[in-house]
């Protein structure tokens, strides 16, 4: 380097490697000022209220207590008792049943309604608005509304059954009815979202593909199965994972309708965490469960965006 700028004049004009390094550092630091201004506020809040709690969750999973008393380090004791906990096992079983049934029901209904809407353009907007409406209702209030449908004594469905001279159904006080009622609530609330989601997807299916199908004489159902579905495949896989993430957080409707009962019949994972933490102060298992949920969600998130292709990971 030094040999290149051998002549004295040139040496005066140019910087020594040391000076150059210092100037380069100053320049980069100056260029960072606006970056910090733009990204700082988000990053500060993100670190404090998301990154720190996530790290803390890892540490807590090795601890017991901490909510009312001081935390006590117990090593991997939480993890060894974690899967032996009967209530947690029930919670995992309930949540899995709920997730599978809810996703299968809501996705089949949503795909059907979306393709109906896509084929019948008249009044499309009205139906979109009507189907979207339940999404406005916070889950806890949807729960209250569902009481008026499914309550044993005053629920509309039972009143109608009674009027028709039929046996009443115990929706909330028996298993597995209670869990299925919760599935019903979540399907009611979520259906509109998934209809709109799939409608947007269906409308993005290239029209020339559809026309080609028509010319080849494929009927509506066949066109749906052979053209729409394969085109929607990445979107569908993405949707399944997103729905998994959302539905594994089942809590609000349990709090509204059943409080985990009858006899643990609707105890979900998040309900279990909440109850262990704030009702029973049994924090150890709850910490371990939270961390397991956290890890699962992060893994599923990475998977979901994997399905959409790798164009969104900042590489481009």
């Amino acid at each position, binding site marked *: 380097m030094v040999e290149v700028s051998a002549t004295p004049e040139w040496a005066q004009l140019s910087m020594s490697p040391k000076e150059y390094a210092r100037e380069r550092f100053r320049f980069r630091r100056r260029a960072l000022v606006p970056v910090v201004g733009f990204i700082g506020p988000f990053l500060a809040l993100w670190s404090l*209220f998301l990154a720190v*709690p996530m790290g803390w969750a890892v540490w807590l999973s090795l601890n017991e207590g901490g909510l009312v008393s001081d935390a006590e380090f117990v090593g991997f004791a939480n993890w060894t008792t974690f899967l032996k906990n009967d209530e947690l096992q029930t919670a995992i079983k309930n949540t899995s049943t709920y997730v599978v049934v809810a996703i299968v029901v809501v996705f089949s209904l949503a795909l059907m309604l979306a393709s109906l*809407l896509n084929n019948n353009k008249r009044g499309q907007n009205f139906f979109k608005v009507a189907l979207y*409406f339940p999404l406005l209702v916070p889950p806890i209030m949807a729960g*209250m509304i569902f009481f008026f449908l499914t309550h044993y004594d005053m629920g509309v469905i039972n009143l109608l059954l009674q009027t028709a001279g039929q046996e009443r159904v115990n929706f909330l006080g028996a298993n597995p009815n209670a869990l299925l009622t919760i599935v019903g609530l979540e399907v009611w609330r979520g259906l509109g979202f998934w209809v709109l989601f799939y409608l947007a997807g269906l409308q993005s299916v290239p029209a020339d593909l559809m026309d080609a199908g028509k010319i080849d004489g494929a009927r509506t159902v066949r066109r749906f199965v052979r053209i729409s579905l394969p085109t929607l495949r990445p979107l569908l896989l993405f949707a399944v994972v997103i729905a998994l993430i959302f539905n594994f957080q089942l809590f*609000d409707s349990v*709090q509204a309708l059943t409080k985990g009962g009858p006899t643990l019949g609707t105890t979900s994972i998040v309900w279990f965490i909440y109850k262990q933490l704030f009702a029973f102060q049994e924090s150890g298992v709850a910490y371990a469960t939270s961390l397991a949920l956290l890890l699962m969600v992060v893994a599923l*998130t990475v998977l*979901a965006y994997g399905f959409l292709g790798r164009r969104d990971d900042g590489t481009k």
Partner: protein
Amino acid sequence: MTVISDQDGRDLAALKRQSVSLRSLKSSVSYLVLTLFTIISVGPAIYIVSPAFRESKSLFSYPPQWLPNELYLGNFEFLLTETNYVRWAINTLIFATSVTLIALVIDTLAGYAFARMQFPLKRTLFGLVLATLMVPTAAVLAPTYLLVRLLDDWTFGIVGIDTFPGLILPMTVSPLGVFMMRQFIETLPPGLYEAARIDGAGEWRIFTRIVLPLLKPAIVVLGIFVFMMQWANLLWPLVATTRDETRVLTVGISTLQGQFVTNWGVIAAATLMTLIPITIVFLFFQKWFVQASVAGALKQ
């Protein structure tokens, strides 16, 4: 009359009539199904009007009474005088609006930085933020609660349990918002600000004068999305508030359910009163709401 027939001698006009009637049959079945689901979607919420205007004991009468005999207003009176309903509603508005405004500011700024600025570790940082995209409150409930309780001492009670900052700040962090904003800003033609940059405009000037006006639709969509998430939020407010005066609507209404006896008329009235304003807002801005719901998942 001449009958046009194909090679097999079938009457083409009749075939066409048949296919038209088949198509109209198919579309009427479609509309029947759609109408059925419309009733299922809207019906339960409309039914709430009836118990809201009836005394709770009449809800259990047999034979069932479907409509109120008279307009009984006792439930609303009870709600407004015997409970903190008004306070809860104000708290919900403060909570959801603050979260929305703060989230919009920090998400738009960070989205711009991730889309347009160069800085070291950009990809690593974005990857990290992306990995936390869907982290649910439930999974970090205990540490967040402990953190806010700890901050109570450190910030002399400004951020803490039962305070608005303690309720609001943890909910403002949504990597999804940054992600949406970044994607939106990347779709803007770069020529727009290359010109401004050559004219000597700094990043802040480019952001406020050129990018921000173009971001209006994205801001409305993200704003609705965040507001809807937060006004329905139950879990965090349930944990972060302990006094009746600091509760929000979702928590407050769930406390109306009694341990042994529940005044169902009051619950119906509370649900109705809460749903009417949001429904009116929704009917005015339905196009934006629909976009907001799909945008969250689709606008990658």
